[in-house]
C-alpha cells in the first residue's frame, strides 16, 4: 500500500503541473495562430471561419465527447448565437463586436438549455432523431420569421463597428482573425478548467454510467441541462463570431448539414479531447477547402474516402492515433 501518490503535500505541485500544461497548450495554439497569420495573410477569412467552426465543434465535444449525448442538431446553438448577434446589430443598432459576442453567447446558452429539455428525453438513436427534429424546427422557424431573419435570402445589413473603437474589420480580415484567435484561446482555457472541475468529472461520469451517478445522489438531468447551456454559450460565441466576420447570417447556420459536418469533424479529431475538436476542424475544413479549390467538381468523393480511411486506420480520431503512436514510440525507447 503506497502513500506516496496521495499525501496532501504532493497535491499542490500536481495542480501546478496542470496549470503549466494549460500554459503550454495555450502557447502552442497561439504559436500556430501567429504562424498561420504570417504564412497565409490572404486566407484570414477562411481561418476566421475555421475558428468559428472550432467553437461549434468544441461545444459539441462538451455534450457528446464529455457527456455522452448523441446529437445531430448542434447547429441549433450556433445558429441561435449567429442570428441573435446579427439581429441586434441589423435591427437594433447594437454594433459593438464585443456586445454582439455577448448577445450571441447568451442566446446560445438559452437555446442550449431549452433544446436540451427535448434532446435529453431520448437515448442513442432516439436522441439522434430528437436532435434532428429540434434543428429542423429551428430551421423552419427561422425561415418563417423572415421579417427578423431575412429567411432564405439571409440576414444582411450587419455592420459591426470597430473593435474597441479602434480596429476596423478590414478587407484582409486581420481584426476579425486576431479577435477570433483571442476568443478561442480564452474559451479553450476556460473549457480546460471546466472539464477538469468537479462538474466536468460529473459529466464524464454521466457519460459512462448515469445510474451510478444517481446512486451517488447527483442529478443527471439537471447536470446535463447545465452542460448544454455552457456548450450553448460556446457555440453561440462561434455563431456571433461568424456573423461579425461575414456580416451575413444564412439559414445554413441552423441546418442539419452543419450539425452533421460538426459531428464529422469532432469524430475525425477525436471525441472527449479539446485538442481533438480543434485538430478535427482544422484538418477537415482545410482539406475540404484545398481539395475543392483544386478540383471543385469531384472533391466530395475524396472527402468521403478520407472519412472511411479515418475509421479504418484511426478509429479514435486523429488525436487518438497520434497518442497511440506517441505511446508506442515511448514504449520502444524505454
Amino acid at each position, binding site marked *: *500500500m503506497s502513500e506516496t501518490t496521495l499525501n*496532501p503535500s504532493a497535491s499542490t505541485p500536481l495542480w501546478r503541473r496542470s496549470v503549466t500544461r494549460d500554459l503550454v497548450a495555450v502557447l502552442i495554439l497561439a504559436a500556430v495562430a501567429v504562424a498561420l497569420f504570417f504564412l497565409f495573410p490572404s486566407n484570414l477569412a477562411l481561418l476566421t471561419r475555421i475558428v468559428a467552426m472550432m467553437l461549434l465543434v468544441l461545444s459539441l465535444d462538451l455534450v457528446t465527447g464529455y457527456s455522452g449525448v448523441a446529437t445531430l442538431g448542434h447547429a441549433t446553438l450556433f445558429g441561435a448565437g449567429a442570428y441573435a448577434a446579427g439581429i441586434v446589430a441589423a435591427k437594433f443598432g447594437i454594433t459593438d463586436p464585443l456586445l454582439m459576442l455577448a448577445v450571441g453567447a447568451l442566446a446560445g446558452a438559452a437555446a442550449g438549455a431549452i433544446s436540451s429539455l427535448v434532446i435529453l428525453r431520448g437515448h442513442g438513436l432516439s436522441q439522434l432523431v430528437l436532435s434532428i427534429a429540434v434543428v429542423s424546427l429551428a430551421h423552419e422557424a427561422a425561415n418563417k420569421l423572415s421579417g427578423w431573419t431575412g429567411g432564405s435570402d439571409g440576414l444582411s445589413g450587419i455592420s459591426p463597428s470597430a473593435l474597441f473603437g479602434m480596429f476596423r474589420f478590414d478587407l484582409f480580415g486581420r481584426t476579425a482573425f486576431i479577435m477570433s484567435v483571442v476568443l478561442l484561446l480564452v474559451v479553450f482555457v476556460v473549457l480546460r478548467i471546466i472539464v477538469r472541475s468537479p462538474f466536468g468529472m460529473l459529466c464524464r*461520469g454521466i457519460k459512462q454510467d448515469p445510474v451510478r451517478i444517481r446512486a451517488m*445522489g447527483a442529478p443527471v438531468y439537471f447536470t446535463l441541462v447545465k452542460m448544454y447551456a455552457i456548450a450553448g454559450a460556446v457555440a453561440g460565441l462561434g455563431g456571433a463570431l461568424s456573423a461579425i466576420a461575414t456580416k451575413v447570417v444564412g439559414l445554413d447556420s441552423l441546418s442539419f448539414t452543419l450539425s452533421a459536418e460538426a459531428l464529422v469533424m469532432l469524430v475525425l479529431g477525436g471525441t472527449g479531447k479539446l485538442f481533438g475538436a480543434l485538430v478535427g476542424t482544422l484538418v477537415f475544413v482545410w482539406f475540404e477547402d484545398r481539395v475543392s479549390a483544386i478540383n471543385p467538381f469531384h472533391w466530395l468523393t475524396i472527402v468521403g474516402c478520407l472519412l472511411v480511411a479515418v475509421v479504418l486506420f484511426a478509429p479514435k480520431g486523429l488525436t487518438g492515433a497520434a497518442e497511440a503512436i506517441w505511446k508506442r514510440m515511448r514504449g520502444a525507447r524505454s
Partner: protein
Amino acid sequence: MSLFEVKNLRKNFGGLAVTDDVSLSLQKGDRIALIGPNGAGKTTFVNLVTGHLKPLSGTVHLDGQNVTKASPTQRVKQGLVRSFQVTRLFSEMTPEEHVALAILQRLGRSGHLFTNFKTMPEVVEEIGSILALLGLGGIARTPVAEIAYGQQRLLEIALAMALRPKVLLLDEPAAGVPSSDTVLIERALAQLPPGLAVLMIEHDMDFVFRFAQRVVVLAAGAIIFDGTPAEVGKDARVREAYLGSYADDRSVA
C-alpha cells in the same frame, strides 16, 4: 424510532407479487443480512427502498422522515446509499477520481465549474485515507478498466464510504470475486463506521454468519424469517424455501 423503517411495502410485476407486504427496520449500528433463493425479490426490494422503483403501497422512513415519495438522489442526500450487485464504475476514470466525485457530491461541490479537487487539501486528504484504508492507494491513478475485479468491488465500497451514509444497502458485495479474495471484501466491510446501519444481500452463508448479527430471509417476495444467524438453519420454512428452489445448494445446511 428506528433509523430506517420500511412498512408494508408491496410491488407487483404484471399480476405477480414480487414484494409482498414487507416490513423491516434497522437501528444505528445494525449489521443485517438479507438472504433468499434466486428470484425471491431481494434486488427488487433494494430498488424499491432506494426509489428506483415505485411501490404499489407501503412507506419508507429514513431517520424519522417519510421518504416514500422522494427521488433516488434525494434519498442518497439524506443518507441512504446502495452498492450494486454488478460493478457500476466509470471505466475511463481512476479510483482517485471516483472517490473525489463522491466526496465532492457529499460536500455539495459537485456542480462547481471553476475549481479542481486537487486544490482542496481536505478532499485530497480524505481520498487518500479512504483508498489507503481499503488498500487501493497503489492504483489510485490507474483507470478502472485496467484494475482487477476484486479491486473494483473494493472501490464500490470506497464510494459508499465516501458518501458517509447513515444506512448502507450492499447488494452482494462479494459477487463475482474469486473466493480467495473475499477476505479482502470482508476486511473492508469491517472498516465501516460502527454507527452505520448496514443491510447486506449475500449468498455466501459463511460470509453472512461472520458479518451479520441478524438474518432476514425473503422468499417469493415475503419475509419468512427474521432472527439470529444461529437460528436460521433450523427454521423449517427457510429450509423448505431453499430446498424447493435449489435442493443441492451447499451453503444452506
